[in-house]
């Protein structure tokens, strides 16, 4: 038995409009939401560290079946509401109904 709440509930409560563009693929309009960022001091075993926010984004597999590294996600910054472009940099986790990805801001050109 799967006791987890359905993804739709989280998307309905916390979801933000997003445009997801995997490399060499047409943009997809969807809904995404942020998980609380984790702040970690890196490099972990160094005496000189910078505390960085790791930004975690959840994307529905129903709308975005594939989400390779380099995928660009345009979604509002949680704090400011400003729509920014983010690039998928790493996979934190994957589930049957969603991707959980670490993103970095795309530098403004």
């Amino acid at each position, binding site marked *: 038995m799967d006791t987890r709440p359905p993804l739709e509930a989280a998307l309905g409560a916390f979801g933000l409009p997003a445009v997801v563009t995997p490399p060499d693929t047409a943009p997809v309009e969807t809904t995404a939401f942020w998980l609380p960022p984790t702040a*970690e*001091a*890196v*490099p972990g075993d*160094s*005496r*000189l*560290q*910078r*505390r*960085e*926010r*790791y*930004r975690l984004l959840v994307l529905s597999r129903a709308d975005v079946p594939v989400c390779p590294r380099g995928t660009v996600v345009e979604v509002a910054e949680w704090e400011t509401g400003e729509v920014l472009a983010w690039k998928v*940099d*790493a*996979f*934190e986790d994957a589930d049957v109904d969603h991707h959980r990805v*670490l*993103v*970095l801001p795309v*530098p403004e050109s």
Partner: protein
Amino acid sequence: MSATISKRRLAIEALVDRLEFITQANDYNTDAGNLIFVGESPKLGEDDPRSALAVFVRDDQPIEGESAITRAGICRYRLPVEIHGITTPEEGVSPGMAYEGLISDIKEAVEIEGREPGSISAAVSRSLGALGVTLPTGLERGTTRVQYREGGSEIVACVVEYSIDFEELWGHP
């Protein structure tokens, strides 16, 4: 009588003076010389400069083949020093090239005293500080280590080790 400024301190000050030369205005790859920590282990935040350095002095040790204290009351010892650097790659620069740039900055700044912008001066220096602070060829480079960028993070880091050889009279550090 004024307080003694030890050779160790003079050498570390000279090392930091050289590291402060690392700015892009001086034709280095980074501005790491604008933020240097000595003897502290900081955790920087998002609002701090993207590049920084920290100097750590390790436990000293006798120079190979000698005891720490010679019969004539002269102490010769080697002081290992680690220079830690962090930076975030500029746009279009790979993480690997970013830490290589930082490593190059540290080595040039430490080993070529007062390199002029745009020059390829070969005025290398094998000692630190004024004459007699360290032994004449008392500055040696050790190993270089790197820290790779992790997924979701932008930071790369490196460590360049040096050793500094001193000769002190007993009671006159």
